[in-house]
């Protein structure tokens, strides 16, 4: 790549929209060309100027404590490895996390609720409708896949429901989501849904709290969920209430 070619690509390289081999070529050229590095640094200063001129706004003073507190929670709850963020039971924590996840979860809640409600009365045409709507969503959202599974009650249980997984971008730019809808007529209490992989790995979702027989839970995470291909729902005493095989939508 010549200097002229690299310089033409620098704005895209800088703004993160240059892809694959060209981006690598630009990086390689920059390592060995002081003149192009100089041009690149000028453009970076342009981005800095843009941000200072166009969107530099002092946030409310209390936000600093909130953000540092959030990081403190993150550090306390996790190891160094990037890991799951889930709604917790703490009231303050619940509030901010709900806000953070609400936008992502709302879409899935709506679509999943429709699919689950639909399944109650129109099971015969469920597969076709679901598959098409999830494919459409996947096209719009990007990401790798939508997968669904139907909860099958264990012996002595009446639990029905559905699990839906959106496998986002594994590079971590977009999160992956898992959501479980369950129905046990007349039941009020809790249960735990756990994702399972063929090699024995497991990841529990936050508890399902049932109100008059209906319950749901979800997980938003930057962890790759593709390795999980089944789900088990258990009672607080560890009894298996239902299981689901998770397959491509």
């Amino acid at each position: 790549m010549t200097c002229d070619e690299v310089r033409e690509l620098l704005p895209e390289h800088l703004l993160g929209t240059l892809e694959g081999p060209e981006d690598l070529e630009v990086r390689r050229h920059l390592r060995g060309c002081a003149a192009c590095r100089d041009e690149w640094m000028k453009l970076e200063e342009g981005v800095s100027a843009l941000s200072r001129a166009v969107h530099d706004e002092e946030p409310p003073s209390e936000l600093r404590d909130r953000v540092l507190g959030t990081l403190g929670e993150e550090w306390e709850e996790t190891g160094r490895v990037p890991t799951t963020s889930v709604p917790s039971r703490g009231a303050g924590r619940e509030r901010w996390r709900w806000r953070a996840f609400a936008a992502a979860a709302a879409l899935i809640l709506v679509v999943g609720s429709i699919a689950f409600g639909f399944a109650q009365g129109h099971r015969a045409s469920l597969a076709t409708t679901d598959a098409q709507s999830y494919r459409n969503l996947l096209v719009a959202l990007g990401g790798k896949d939508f997968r669904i599974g139907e909860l099958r009650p264990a012996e002595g249980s009446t639990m029905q429901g559905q699990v839906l997984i959106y496998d986002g971008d594994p590079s971590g730019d977009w999160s992956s989501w898992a959501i479980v809808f369950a129905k046990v007529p007349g039941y009020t209490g809790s249960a735990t849904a756990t994702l399972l992989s063929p090699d024995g790995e497991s990841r529990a979702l936050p508890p399902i709290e049932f109100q008059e027989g209906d319950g749901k839970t979800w997980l938003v995470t930057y962890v790759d969920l593709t390795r999980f291909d089944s789900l088990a729902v258990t009672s607080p005493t560890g009894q298996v209430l239902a299981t689901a095989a998770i397959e491509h939508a």
Partner: protein
Amino acid sequence: MTIVRTDEPGSDLALMADFAARRERAAGVLYDRFASRIYGLGVVMLGNHQAAQDLVQDTFVKLWRSADRYDPQRGRLETWVLLTARSLAIDALRRRVLESRSLQLVGVQREEDPEPLPDEQAAVVDLSARARRAMGVLSPEQRSALELAYFGGRTTAEVAALEGVPQGTVKTRIRSALLRLRAEMAKESGR
């Protein structure tokens, strides 16, 4: 508020290493250095203060989760932070649009964001006016290309298609716009 400047690549690397090692001081330095621009980006892109505050929080969590991937050879920390925030803001906008469309499909009215308080509205108007003034040094074509690429996360090919001009023209417009803003800021700080 104390603002600690650490503009050299070496100190940026040390700062991110401290941040990755969960040192609260490093988190505070990063916050003081970048929060206002992330927040402003949220106000401009997402249009309300609550969403802008969430963007700041989400950006810092994501920065921590990817802190060990920061490489000063690949660019300034400032650019990396700003593009991380921009990516999250675009993600939020995309979800908002999809949520709205899904709710329309099932005939449910989308719950509106809470009405901003008068002082919040004034701040948004003020920031927008400032943004217009700053971008006023650019030609309309430069401004449009830069806005689509920077705030919209569009590739130059997408901007070219939207604007109906060759891709090379878009690249030139973005480059010229950034250099012009850099020059203007240098002029401002020299006054």
